[in-house]
């Protein structure tokens, strides 16, 4: 331990923090050598992703220094910084790095001395705390594992060789319709006549939502989603990456979770009265809800409410579910972003952790976890002994078995958004509908495009969110609104996030055309069972 020297990354604002550091220099104030400084114009520029990236790359601590409140060169940049650092600290706590490794300080241009002492103090504290586990093995920003499978074999495996160039995929694709530069057909055709490089370097490779609509309709069942996933891995191996939304913070978190030493504090959300177990029949695989809760706290969705609702329902049905203390990201997003290496790590660790609990049933509230656990893990690691069920399927069986009974009538019209992974990828269309319609007083009104033809929420795998995503979201919300439903139920936390995000931004149309309350299926069920308090809005709907 004696050789341990903490590695600190410092983000300094140009006008105060950086000037303060300069002053420390001109004043010949010495401080430990452990810090590396990155100059930014304002502390408000520092994103959570920067911080997480610093940790991913082996930092033991991150220091952000800005102007004192009220002194910001850009008026309120430091206030933003304060909020962001707060959020990042929460994420660091959950992921187990600990919020004390991140420090925000106000250092004015005149405070050279303060700067030096902050560094000294932070270095000492970090020295006492010990090194971050990540320092030993930086996970790196991108996976470098190459995909050896030749393009011809990929085309064969995904049946793309059979492409009849008919254009059914491209005319179905919600992206192509908005962005003519991208076309599933042309991508396949290019690959087919040997223009492999064009395919891998094409921006379109990252525009695909892997929403499965093209595959659903393709008469030859070309596995377009799989083709895209493999090509992305191939592209990623040669250093090409897609455009990540949220500056890649969610990918950072997933990669951090892929580290074997990671010890998370992810069960904070569990209510005290809830009954959970370490081993047992039923395991509830929460997914990344605790993280989403932090990242998306500003768009009117409460992600842990989904987990809490599910847990309460399970308890109400007399089930004491297993929750994994150190459950890791299922790896779905990394896998669809071309990071095969970290996906495989996550898969192995999750699988081992689940096996230890002796669970025979794994329930997920997230369709992506559902798909990944049910099909991708077994493909990689062989068929496990447990069964994977989506919450809708599990709830449906609870209702069938009389394990849960709805006490009263809700009295509302709802519509249902089919998540791509649950619907087209996995073919689960009926259970969520069954659950919804078995709640007394709930009428299900379908949108025009439903079930197999459902429209994607606009973003998948946290990539390529942009103008077209927003257009799709507006279209979908308008469609939902058009059904005159009071509530749009989803069975995927991400659908809810994306649709709510669109609503929380400046709307291109009038609010009446698109604004609709969204709600997760489990939350709806918990409320119908009187297990959670209805929000004010729900009350209004009831009236």
């Amino acid at each position, binding site marked *: 331990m004696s050789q341990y020297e903490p590695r600190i990354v410092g983000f300094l604002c140009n006008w105060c923090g950086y000037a303060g550091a300069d002053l420390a220099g001109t004043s010949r104030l010495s401080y430990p050598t452990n810090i590396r400084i990155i100059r930014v114009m304002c502390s408000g520029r520092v994103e959570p992703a920067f911080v997480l990236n610093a940790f991913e790359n082996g930092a033991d601590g991150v220091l952000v220094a800005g102007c004192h409140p009220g002194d910001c060169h850009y008026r309120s940049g430091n206030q933003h910084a304060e909020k962001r650092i707060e959020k990042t600290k929460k994420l660091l706590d959950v992921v187990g790095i600990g919020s004390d490794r991140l420090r925000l300080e106000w250092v004015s241009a005149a405070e050279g001395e303060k700067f030096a002492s902050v560094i000294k103090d932070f270095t000492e504290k970090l020295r006492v705390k010990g090194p971050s586990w990540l320092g030993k093995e930086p996970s790196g920003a991108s996976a470098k594992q190459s995909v050896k499978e030749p393009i011809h074999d990929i085309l064969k495996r995904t049946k793309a060789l059979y492409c*009849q160039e008919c254009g059914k995929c*491209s*005319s179905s694709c919600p992206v192509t319709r908005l962005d003519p530069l991208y076309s599933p057909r042309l991508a396949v055709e290019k690959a087919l006549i040997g223009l492999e490089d064009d395919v891998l370097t094409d921006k379109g490779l990252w525009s695909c939502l892997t929403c499965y609509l093209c595959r659903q309709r393709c008469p*030859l069942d070309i596995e377009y989603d799989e083709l895209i996933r493999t090509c992305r891995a191939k592209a990623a191996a040669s250093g090409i990456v897609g455009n990540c939304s949220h500056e890649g913070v969610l990918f950072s978190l997933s990669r951090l979770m892929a580290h074997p030493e990671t010890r998370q504090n992810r069960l904070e959300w569990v209510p005290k009265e809830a009954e959970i177990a370490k081993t047992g029949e039923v395991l509830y695989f929460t997914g990344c809800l605790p993280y989403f809760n932090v990242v998306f706290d500003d768009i009117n969705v409460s992600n842990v409410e989904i987990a809490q609702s599910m847990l309460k329902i399970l308890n109400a049905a007399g089930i004491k579910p297993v929750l994994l203390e150190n459950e890791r990201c299922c790896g779905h997003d990394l896998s669809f972003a071309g990071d095969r290496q970290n996906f495989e790590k996550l898969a192995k660790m999750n699988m081992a952790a689940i096996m230890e609990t002796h669970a025979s049933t794994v329930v997920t509230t997230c369709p992506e976890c559902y798909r990944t656990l049910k099909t991708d893990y077994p493909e990689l690691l062989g068929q496990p002994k447990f069964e994977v069920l989506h919450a809708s399927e599990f709830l449906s069986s609870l209702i069938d078995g009389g394990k849960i009974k709805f006490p009263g009538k809700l009295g509302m019209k709802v519509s249902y958004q089919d998540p791509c992974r649950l619907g087209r990828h996995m073919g689960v269309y009926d259970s969520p509908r069954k659950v919804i319609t078995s709640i007394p007083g709930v009428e299900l009104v379908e949108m025009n495009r439903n079930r*197999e033809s459902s429209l994607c929420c606009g973003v998948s795998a946290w990539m390529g969110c942009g103008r077209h995503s927003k257009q799709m979201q507006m279209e979908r919300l308008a469609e939902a609104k058009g059904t005159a439903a009071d509530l749009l139920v989803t069975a995927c936390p991400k659908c809810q996030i994306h649709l709510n995000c669109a609503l929380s931004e400046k709307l291109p149309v009038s609010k009446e055309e698109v604004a609709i309350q969204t709600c997760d299926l489990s939350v709806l069920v918990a409320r119908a069972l009187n297990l959670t308090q209805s929000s004010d809005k729900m009350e209004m709907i009831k009236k």
Partner: protein
Amino acid sequence: MSEKPSVLVIGGGIAGIQASLDLAGRGFQVYVLEETPTIGGRMAQLDKTFPTMDCSICILAPKMMECFRHPNIKLLTYSELKEIKGSVGNFRVKILQKPRYVDGTKCTGCGTCAEHCPVEVPNEFDMELGMRKAIYMPMPQAVPRCMTLDKENCIDCKLCTKMCRAGAVDFQQEPQDVNLKVGAIIIATGFNQYDPSEIVEYGYKKNKNVLTALEFERWVCASGPVAGHLLRPADGGIPKRIAFIQCVGSRGTKFGAPFCSSVCCMYATKEALIIREHAPDVQVHIFYNELRAFGKGFHEFVNRARTEYGVNYIRSRPGEIKEDPRTKSLTIWYDDTFTREIKSLNDVDLVVLCPALLPRESNRKLAGIMGIELDECGFFKVVHPLLAPVDTTVPGIYVCGYCQSPKDIPDSVAQASAAAARAAEALTLVQVQRTE
């Protein structure tokens, strides 16, 4: 052994008819087994035939009548094959004749009974677009010209019995076993249309203005459910824009069939021409994948449709059809593959889906009875697709028409004659062996 050599023909469509006429014409005794109440098959349902645009029933009806009148042909309609034993030259066949509840020797086919029958059910012959009564004749040109009472839908009011002056209605009729000895067997069971409702994006059965090709044939046929007037099925309005979609459930591995049905490009072109003749101001669009016009005069026919008739061919399999819930008009989304533009064809009044044509489900049962093989798609397997195109895996049993592999009418007719030739050849050889 002074008996005439005889042949059983299974299926009374155009292939079965041709094989029967060939064999009967040279003095063989022929039995035609047909499961529906009339011979005529699919061709009888068609409005016109390509590329000559002959009225289908006009050229078929004389042949059907010829079968009926031929002294060497016995029609066993409304019948089922029960059992076959023996081998070439000596097959023993058991057939079940279902009761029509109408005495064929008395019925004149005047139709008075049907006029008075109170029960209306969808007419299978009209692809269920039109109605028939519980006592009915599938079509005006039906052969034999005898009514059939459909017991499943009959309400036992006995009005038909009262009304029939010939006293032909007979509720006591029982199923009858018919035992035959035949020297050879020809199978010609034809095809069934794939039901495209599982291809949800095209909205078949959900959107009323979406029809299948066979439905459309009946829809525009003069003797069909709307007497040949070109109308929108949803509301009877006058269509201005009609589209055809090829390969619905064919050439695919997911839905329907992996093979190409071989006739759709041509019949769609034919139907397009029918439309342009009916109503020259109606736009017709044909969405195709690969325009398969390989038969004699076919490519020229398509060219004429394109240049003289202004039929618009678009190389694309559309992604989806959307219905305007208010007007019931349709929007077709497609990738114009030659320009690579994603486009929508709006205000389409009628979409005709050209579904895969599948070998009949009942082939499996037939194959079991006869001990012959089917291929993975359900077509009757032949010994060698090139050199023995009509010989099944059992000597003395031959196959022709669509049930052997996808083909059009002329190819079916030629193959029917071929099967007849093979049957005649086999019977001659058997006779020679016997006399030796």
